[in-house]
């Protein structure tokens, strides 16, 4: 697959940066915890993509292996995050992050 040569590494970096920033933006503008979780997943995926690109660039498999670990972590986080969400929903009937502001100052 020689053709890929045409694409500068830079573009991968920019692509992940954009995806990452979109994820961040999502976290910032949304109040629904589930959507926020998803945006965080998006951020992690941007990182994954970057890792794979670097891995390919260096011709080094470690980057891809690292992506596995990120996936594992993502899965674990989602599991825990969603169970927290369920727990909260059970107590408060809401998934609104803005609702959680009793602890302050």
């Amino acid at each position: 697959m020689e053709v890929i040569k045409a694409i500068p590494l830079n573009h991968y970096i920019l692509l992940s940066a954009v995806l990452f920033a979109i994820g961040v933006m999502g976290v910032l503008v949304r109040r629904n915890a589930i959507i926020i979780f998803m945006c965080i997943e998006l951020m992690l995926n941007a990182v994954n993509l970057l890792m794979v690109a670097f891995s390919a660039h260096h011709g080094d498999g470690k980057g891809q292996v690292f992506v596995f670990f990120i996936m594992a972590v993502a899965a674990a986080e989602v599991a825990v995050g969603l169970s927290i969400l369920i727990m909260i929903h059970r107590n408060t009937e809401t998934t609104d992050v803005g609702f959680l502001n009793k602890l302050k100052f």
Partner: protein
Amino acid sequence: MKALLLVSGLGFLGILSEILNFKKFIYKLSIVGLLAAIVVTFLEWDNPTPAYFNNMVYFDNLAISFIAVLLITGLLWFLMAESIFENDGLQSDKSTLVLFSIVGAVCMVAYNNITMLFIGIEILSICMYVLAGSKKESLGSNESAMKYFLMGAFATGFLLMGIAFIYGASASFDVMEIKAYMSNSPQNIELVYTGIILLAIGLAFKISAVPFHFWAPDVYEGAPIQVTALMSTIVKTAAIAAFYKLFTVSFGSQEIVWSTTLSYIAALSVLIGNIIAVFQSNVKRMLAYSGISHAGYLLLAILANNAAGGTALTYYTLAYSVATIAAFTVVANVASVKGSSDFTSFEGLGKKNKLITISVIVSMMSLAGIPPFAGFFGKYFLFTSYLENHSINLVIIGLIGSAISIYYYFRLIVNLFKGESDEVIPLSLTSKIVLIIAIILTVAMGIFPEIMNGGW
């Protein structure tokens, strides 16, 4: 290494206890196990072959000291937290999570590969997210877990981004290889810069340094007291140890990149942490802010960028952890009787509760950094290590912070002697043991500050 395995095993035992129905013993088992782990750890001192598993982990003396700090803290924590392992169907879950979090912390301390660091951070974080929410019916606990999780996961994103950039530049996750790469005038300077900064941000979040500290007060306040104790000791110790290793070993030669940023973060942490702590009415929250300011002090060790910083860090984290555990032990006991951990709950306790009084005095003075208690030497070592090759400005800010901190630490002491009260706070045997050990350790470390200065 053995300690890592031992504690992991203990964690698995915790799960097994649920299945095999020996929940009742898991608490005592954990304590015995941790004791054994401490012994085992010390046996590994001056390990001739510190690297294990293809350089994944590296148990040199610094790591071992940190592990010792973690395990001692963990042991003290188990002793103080006896009450959360009672009358609750969740004790095996909790002990498992705590033990696993210690495993994660050990990984963070002994890592020699960023993968291990990352996984360690995540193990620790996930356990903490859960533990923060372990008081399921309490809204505070729920909120605490949610906030912690949301922000933790969010910060993880930045951390990972940083790792990715570093990998992109150096093509490696190995601490030593990155070090080699960094010291030979790296190309891809943008990747290096951004990577280091993002890593710093991610780790600063973990040690709750300003401006990434927002989670800490709310989470500390909402979480069950015992969990807060765990968060403010083990998490902080592990994170700062990881931070130290990464930045002084891997990025030590690129000090110019991160020193300014971290200096500002440290200064802000010290000032803002201390200043906001002044106005708190809840002791837990006050300790959270104090924890933020201590994060600032801890950063000095990283900024020092030398071996003395590491030594200072081990000393400081132990001193800080011991004093914090003692403080939380008292807070937990008082709160369980009085129903709240506000300052007012402590009023008049100085009259009839000798042990509590002495513990509060000793731990608060140690946290405030007043000689001859351990906290003073901790700060002192940090400052001197920093001053070995840096100017004095940051130290002065640290001292200003110290002066402010006296205000709120002493407020607790003063509260003990306010008003008249004959109330006696019952202390369980384990709490007493914790307090006595903490007092002895805090004083002994002050009198013999060299005990932590084994050569490495």
